[in-house]
């Protein structure tokens, strides 16, 4: 969208055309007392050199040279410069929703490719393109389960990302959904024994995350079997999408709600990201979000269109599957370009490096007296460790050595104080992991 300034004479010409004397006249229907007379409390306009200086100063506030072991829903991964070059092309960057297939085949093709990739990765039959992020995708998946089962009770594992659960709680509170949380065991996995028949009775969905908030992989097959035994659907959420390069896809899940940030999207300031919902073909009409479909044109040539739009708000208003009437098309394109560059083998190799580096870091940390692994379940690139003292104290000391330490999960789990969530991706050099372990050892050897 371009901003086109008007000259005073052009303004006069436009006013004359509609038969008024001044711009002020256009506001006459608004009573005087409601009109804003004072100027807005904004800083004065800056000249171009001033604005450049301003942004240089802001950029200098960044903290380069720090090593971060934070994950918990946002991950540092390798990103190719090719991806940025592709998405900054005007044809993609400025294009609007491709309602008109005749002039939008490029965008529609890329959306179709994205959906195909998401299906292949999640083991599901149909995927949308797209949702805002992982947390809102999860909530939409739960609402979908509610519509499909006509039940109001939702069982959510406590090992699901606490912020995802907060988003769900916000929606649930106003929609009359009853959310019950299910605990976890010493493995860090969902406590299947807590899933009694009484608990399950009348539940629309069981919600698990894998890898879960503790980095532990859930047994999706078992969780699905338990949920299905009482007619509930299994909703699986994935915050770390790179795990799908090596972890078995959650094919037994009925709905998969995923955060796609790990596929080439910079962590930025915690967004914007891209969410995805993938599901079984038979549930497609209850799935929210944009969907491109393959068809043939009048000449029989392969082409793509937006399809099943009756689910969407611009057609069905309040009867739509969701209030979401937009998507994250550009970020879906980032993910598509990124995945196509990596290829199947590239993604697997990236995932393998995450496992190898995380295992190396875990082994290095466990050599430190008083530091031990908190959960025994299998992990991908994140794990929880137990420290002999407060994680916040440790992190303050680490920060002085330019290390951003593990996330103190006691904030979200009162029973898990002195535990920190460590994330190690393929971007972390071995020397940095060793430096982290050595610093931690020194900090813990010093008296409190």
């Amino acid at each position, binding site marked *: 969208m371009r901003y086109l300034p008007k000259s005073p004479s052009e303004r006069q010409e436009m006013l004359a055309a509609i038969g008024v004397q001044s711009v002020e006249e256009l506001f006459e229907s608004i009573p005087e007392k409601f009109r804003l007379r004072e100027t807005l409390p904004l800083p004065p306009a800056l000249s171009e050199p001033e604005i450049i200086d301003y942004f240089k100063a802001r950029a200098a506030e960044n903290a380069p040279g720090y090593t971060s072991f934070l994950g918990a829903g946002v991950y540092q991964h390798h990103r190719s410069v090719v991806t940025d070059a592709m998405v900054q092309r005007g044809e993609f960057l400025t294009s609007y929703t491709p309602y008109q297939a005749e002039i939008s085949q490029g965008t529609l093709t890329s959306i179709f490719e994205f959906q195909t990739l998401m299906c292949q990765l999640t083991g599901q039959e149909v995927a949308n393109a797209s949702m805002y992020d992982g947390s809102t995708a999860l909530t939409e998946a739960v609402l979908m389960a509610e519509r499909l089962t*006509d039940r109001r009770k939702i069982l959510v594992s406590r090992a699901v990302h606490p912020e995802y659960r907060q988003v769900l709680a916000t929606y649930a509170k106003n929609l009359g959904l009853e959310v019950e949380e299910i605990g976890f065991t010493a493995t860090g996995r969902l406590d299947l024994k807590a899933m009694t028949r009484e608990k399950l009775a009348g539940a629309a969905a069981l919600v698990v995350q894998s890898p879960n908030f503790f980095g532990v992989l859930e047994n999706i097959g078992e969780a699905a079997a338990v949920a299905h035994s009482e007619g509930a659907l299994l909703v699986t959420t994935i915050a770390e999408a790179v795990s799908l390069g090596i972890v078995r896809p959650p094919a037994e899940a009925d709905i998969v709600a995923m955060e796609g940030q790990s596929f080439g999207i910079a962590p930025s300031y915690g967004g914007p990201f891209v969410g995805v919902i993938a599901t079984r073909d038979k549930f497609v*009409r209850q799935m929210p979000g944009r969907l491109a479909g393959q068809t043939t044109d009048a000449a029989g040539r392969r082409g793509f269109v937006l399809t099943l739009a*009756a689910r969407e708000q611009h*057609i*069905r208003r309040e*009867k739509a599957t969701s209030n979401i009437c937009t998507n994250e098309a550009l970020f879906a394109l980032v993910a598509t370009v990124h995945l196509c560059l990596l290829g199947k083998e590239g993604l697997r190799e990236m995932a393998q490096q995450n496992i190898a580096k995380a295992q190396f870091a875990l082994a290095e940390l466990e050599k430190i007296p008083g530091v031990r692994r908190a959960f025994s379940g299998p992990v991908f690139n994140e794990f929880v460790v137990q420290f002999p003292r407060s994680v916040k104290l440790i992190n303050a000391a680490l920060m002085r050595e330019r290390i951003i330490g593990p996330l103190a999960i006691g904030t979200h789990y009162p029973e898990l104080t002195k535990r920190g969530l460590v994330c190690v991706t393929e971007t972390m050099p071995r020397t940095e992991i060793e430096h982290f372990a050595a610093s931690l050892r020194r900090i813990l050897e010093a008296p409190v």
Partner: protein
Amino acid sequence: MYPTDYRYTKDHEWVKVNGSTGTIGITDYAQNELGDVVFVEFPKVGVRVEAGKSFGTVESVKAVSELFCPLSGEVAEINSQLSDTPEKINQDPHGAAWLIRVKLSNPNEIASLMDAKAYEAYIATKTREQSA
């Protein structure tokens, strides 16, 4: 064309009453206006429906339309065959492609519906309006 033992709504649904049960569908006029039907969204069996209120939707290649219930009652049966063969609505709207059966709570409501003759006159006006 329009069965004389059926009753009709201005929203183009028909109902055939048999004792305390009403069988409900959409009219030939409706299917013709909609074009190829691709999906029907049914209510659940046991749900209460009210005369004049929506009980589901029918989706065609052209549009999504609400289905309005001619008479009040409780949904006793749905024509689940239509889930796999929605095109039957275009082929046999007054017969095999009935949509739902309702256990009627107030059969007297039928007095407010049109008979075949009145409905044919009603759609004739509609058609004239459209061609005008």
